[in-house]
């Protein structure tokens, strides 16, 4: 078992807890024996003194049983919570260091369900099924041993239903687990519909799409209803078996026992002891079915956990090289996403670009030409698949990743704020060490974040998912402040002013120009105003840089650039690349005839297994509740 490294520290306690549990179970098996002794001895002999002794023994055993089970729980409670926590911390640590490709492939909900649900299952497995498979097997063996010693005939009568009971239980449990998983998936999908209808409420309202949303919701809800009913039917069958079979066996044992007592082959005390032992054994036998099912599930959980843990971390090592003042250089940079379908061309097909030290280069290109991808290559969020990028002469593929990210600061197109104060969100731009008050204020001033002064707690206002929600423009300005706070050597800005209003944009530009004067920077630009921040402009087209020059030069020489900057010139131009399929005329009307085959009147809920993000929310652990209930019961023994 690969869990061993995590379990190792608690192995002694775990083993000891199993021993304690076996002993405690034996206590509950001994009580009926004392009872037998009392009935056959002092009670039949009318000896009140012996009764006291027997009663005392029952009391002692009862106290021991309760006490030992308490000891067992106490032994494992904290250590196993510790195991769960250390596995979770290891997962988190590992995930943070996995490449961005991995995170592109894996929805965060999928990762979260591994970090919470699967680890919880594993903890429960260590706490109960692992221990109780042993304990219950031992109890059943000892119990039946006692039964057989007392009366092999009655023992045999009771043994008959045990095997079918266990088989039926594990059969039903397996099917139930399937249905439960399905219900969980459906609850997740339902949650997705709900989440989207809430997050997209403006669109739902703007287009009056209540009805189609409601239909999508109803379909999902009904699917869930059917699965839940199926679960209930399975459960009802299990219970019918569990209720009936042992009752019948005990009834048969009673009849046989009565006959034997009447023939004086058996004492009355034995019969009483027998029946109450049988009762005590009922749970261990029933439980084995779902203990096995739960172990299976824990196996799956462990697989899911290690599936992620086994993904190799990106290579982050490298050596430092002596910098020479060379600026940023890209030579024949090629890139394709690892999950791009085979046969499609590379996204970047050989980018050559040199940004001199202290120079600001604007990057201009049609939507989807790979500008944003290129910006992700610089801090090595993705590694190039061909060619190389050098910072001051050092290949970033050979530098330690930390060093690369120390040199390069980025403001992303989508400004992500973390749940922290404004100050922390800005200061984190300077690296793990943070930034001083002075630097934060300077960065905020550059990004024109004067709105921070008006926030309830100023710099200490909580923002992000759990804090105050800021407007798009405000978030973008904070992200900009974060990028410039550490005075990085290389600065990458992805359309940094898109959400700002005209007035603010002008102010930010002015302040930013100061910063850019002595920083080597790459600025993705969609508009002339942003381009003007740069000394030179690189035009991207077809996955490569097709032209470099000043704004004026490119306006003069490149039809494509003119088109991108003013939207009207040079569709017949020389630069190719973007092409002219943008003409709204020809495209629109003639195609708009009805095609009855193409039924698009569907609701936008998509694939039933589409969004697994919701699983943790959609009822993570509840379907295990009935097992858990059983286990809680088992724990008490």
């Amino acid at each position, binding site marked *: 078992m690969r869990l061993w490294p995590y379990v190792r520290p608690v192995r002694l306690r775990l083993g000891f807890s199993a021993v304690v549990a076996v002993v405690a179970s034996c206590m509950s098996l001994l009580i009926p024996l004392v009872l037998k002794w009392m009935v056959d001895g002092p009670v039949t002999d009318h000896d009140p003194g012996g009764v*006291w002794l027997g*009663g005392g023994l*029952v*009391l002692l055993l*009862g*106290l021991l049983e309760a*006490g030992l089970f308490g000891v067992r*729980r106490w032994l494992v409670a*904290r250590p196993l919570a510790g195991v*769960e926590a250390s596995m979770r911390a290891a997962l988190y640590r590992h995930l*943070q260091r996995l490449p961005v490709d991995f995170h*592109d*492939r894996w929805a*965060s909900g999928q990762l979260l369900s591994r970090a*919470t649900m699967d680890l919880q299952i594993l903890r429960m497995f260590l706490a109960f099924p692992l221990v109780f498979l042993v304990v219950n097997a031992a109890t059943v063996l000892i119990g039946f041993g006692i039964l057989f010693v007392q009366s092999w005939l009655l023992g045999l009568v009771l043994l008959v239903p045990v095997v079918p009971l266990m088989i039926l239980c594990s059969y039903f449990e397996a099917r139930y687990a399937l249905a439960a998983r399905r219900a969980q998936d459906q609850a997740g999908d339902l949650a*997705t519909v*709900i989440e*989207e209808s809430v997050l997209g*409420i*403006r669109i739902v*309202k*703007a*287009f*009056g799409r*209540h009805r189609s949303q409601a239909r999508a919701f109803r379909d999902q809800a009904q699917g*869930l209803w059917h699965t*839940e*009913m199926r679960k209930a*039917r399975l459960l009802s069958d299990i219970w*019918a*078996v569990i209720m*009936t079979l042992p009752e019948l066996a005990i009834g048969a044992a009673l009849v046989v026992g*009565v*006959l034997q007592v009447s023939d004086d082959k058996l004492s009355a005390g034995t019969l009483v002891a027998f029946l109450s032992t049988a009762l005590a054994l009922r749970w261990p036998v029933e439980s084995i079915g779902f203990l096995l099912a739960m172990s299976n599930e824990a196996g799956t959980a462990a697989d899911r956990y290690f599936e992620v843990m086994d993904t190799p971390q990106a290579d982050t090592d490298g050596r430092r090289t002596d910098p020479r003042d060379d600026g940023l250089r890209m030579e024949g940079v090629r890139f394709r996403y690892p999950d791009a*379908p085979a046969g499609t061309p590379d996204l970047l097909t050989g980018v050559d670009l040199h940004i001199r030290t202290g120079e600001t280069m604007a990057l201009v290109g*049609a*939507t989807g030409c790979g500008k944003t991808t290129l910006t992700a290559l610089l801090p090595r969020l993705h590694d190039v698949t061909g060619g190389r990028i050098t910072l001051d002469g050092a290949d970033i593929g050979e530098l330690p990743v930390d060093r690369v990210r120390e040199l390069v600061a980025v403001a*992303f*197109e989508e400004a*992500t704020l973390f749940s922290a104060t404004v100050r922390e969100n800005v200061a*984190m731009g300077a690296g*793990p060490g943070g930034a001083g008050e002075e630097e934060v204020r300077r960065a905020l001033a550059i990004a024109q974040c004067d709105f921070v002064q008006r926030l309830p707690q100023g710099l200490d206002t909580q923002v*992000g*998912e759990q804090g105050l929600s800021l407007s798009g423009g405000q978030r973008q300005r904070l992200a900009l402040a974060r990028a410039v706070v550490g005075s990085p050597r290389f600065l990458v800005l992805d359309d940094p002013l*898109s*959400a700002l*209003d005209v*007035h603010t944009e002008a102010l930010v530009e002015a302040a930013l120009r100061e910063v850019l004067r002595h920083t080597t920077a790459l600025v993705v630009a969609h508009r002339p105003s942003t381009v003007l921040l740069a000394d030179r402009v690189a035009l991207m087209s077809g996955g490569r840089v097709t032209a470099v020059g000043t704004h004026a030069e490119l306006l003069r020489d490149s039809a494509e650039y003119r088109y991108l900057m003013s939207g009207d010139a040079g569709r017949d131009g020389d630069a190719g690349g973007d092409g002219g399929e943008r003409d*709204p*005329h020809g495209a629109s009307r003639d195609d708009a005839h009805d095609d009855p085959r*193409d039924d*698009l009147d*569907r609701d936008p809920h998509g694939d039933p297994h*589409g969004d697994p993000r919701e699983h943790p*929310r959609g009822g993570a652990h*509840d379907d295990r509740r009935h097992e858990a*209930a059983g286990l809680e*019961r088992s*724990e*008490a023994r």
Partner: protein
Amino acid sequence: MTSVADQPEQALEPRPPCGTAVADDRAAPVPGTGAAPGAAPDPFDQDVLPAPRNAQIALLRSLLAPHRRRAWTASVLLLVQQAAVQAGPLLVAYAIDNAIPQVRQGQHGALIAVALGYLACGVASGVLQRAFIRVAARVSQDVLIDLRGRIFRHAQSLSLDFHERYTSGRLIARATSDVESIRELLTDGLEELVGVVLSAVYITALLMFLDWKLALATLVSYVPLYWAIRVFQKRSMVAYRKRSTAVAAVIVKFTETMNGIRPVKAFRREEPNDDAFGELNHRHERANGDAILEMARYVVGSRLIANVTIAGIVLWGAYRVAEGGMALGVLAAFVLYLRRLYDPIDRLGMFLNSYQSAAASLEKIAGLLAQAPAVPEPAEPRPLPEPAGGIPGREVAFEGVRFAYRTGGEVLPSFDLRMPAGQTVAVVGATGAGKSTLAKLLARFYDPTSGRVVLDGVELRDLATADLRRGVVMVTQEAFLFSGTVAENIAIGRPDATREEVEAAAKAIGAHDFIAALPDGYDTDVRKRGGRISAGQRQLVAFARALLADPAVLILDEATSSLDVPGERAVQHAMHTVLTGRTAVIIAHRLSTVEIADRVLVMEGGRIVEDGTPGELIAGDGRFAGLHQAWRDSLV
């Protein structure tokens, strides 16, 4: 076993004593009735919305009402089933005390009766259990689907104002995790809870019947048990609440890191994150351990009480049997019954927990459902007249419109505004000038505090939703994509559109090229691999949606912010061609967008301070002229 029956009342009790007073105040649907800004604490800051007293009871009743017959059937089934289950030990007692002597005398009647009785009880308990589970599941699942549907529909009908203040996270929590905790109770806990109570009642009665003295002794044990349960409940509530807070913090940190993995990596947050996460994780570990130990303490306590009672009963019972005052079979039955009685006590604590959390959830849900939609559907909708003047656009008029938030704080002082059909109006102004509010009033996301918004002579309040949405469509800055394909996302604009129409809309807006380049073209799932869609591309999809919807009045609320110049041109071109003759309201940062407008409104502090054609305003010396000059300068 009164202890258990008492618990439900307990859990429902904790409610603010001033509940009704607050509720009356907030139930008023009219915005703007609130006091001065920031006066009272906003009830929306809390999870539990003020609701009329007993709202959750009324909710429960209305949910159960349609299933009354099934619920009764289930109760009867459970009653009979428990009776069958509890008959077993009684038969044992009868067998020992009567059948054995009879058999000894050669009579097998009693034995046969015992055998048949046991057979009947065993089969009956199994069959009835099966029937009960099925009927109960039917009721609880029907209730759940009803409840889910109500929350969903209600959330959809509540105004945007509500959504903005209640936040999406909490609303989603109501519809998912709160419903989930009720589901847990209904499907797993409730049956157990009722079963335990019922079996306790039955067993107590049977014990009384068998031997009242021993039964009284058993009753005495209920006192410490009740006490143990109460103590456990109180302590575990604290422990579990701590744990769920701790786990929530862990989840938030985890999700945030994974969703923001790019900035995390780019800013080298891995180490600080490890530390922060380690701290939260450790806190959760402690809380988790505390909760488990709390449970352990309770189980040990209740088991101790049970075992001591059993020992006591055995002692006294055996003593009396020995003295000849009691039959042996009765003692055997007693021991068997006591085991059954105390067995489920440990679980009881757990199910009471799930009961409590379900009660809390129900309260929150009832609070949500008690919110009246601030933008209600008209009772008697009026139809829109046929478009006049041969153009598809419609005339818009704001008549004495004033808007203030419910908590106070006037956003738009009273104003009048008329936009003739087919006019393109640009609204400019700084953040917070009231541009978006104006747009939202026109889209009827809000209703004005006073005055009215009129579309071709019909007040928006009087329009049916379908008519309103055919008339007015708004495209916002956040272009949200629903899961599903790109084509499905565009077709939200008009669900009955054909693929050709969808593609035509995409082409008209210049989105066709990038969509065709996606791995599966129009059938690319936007949430799946290959679905890397940039902010600008999302905005184009949102536009295609609006184009397909083909409204009479189009509102663009900063809807071009992420577009590049060609994209913006395509949008403007589409406004001139496909959307020509529509009335359009454009809110934009960028003055290039404004150039195509017939008319410009400059807003400041909620007032329209300048109004005229772009040419007039540029020629003047007002604010717009200044802005425009700055913009021209930036173009070089």
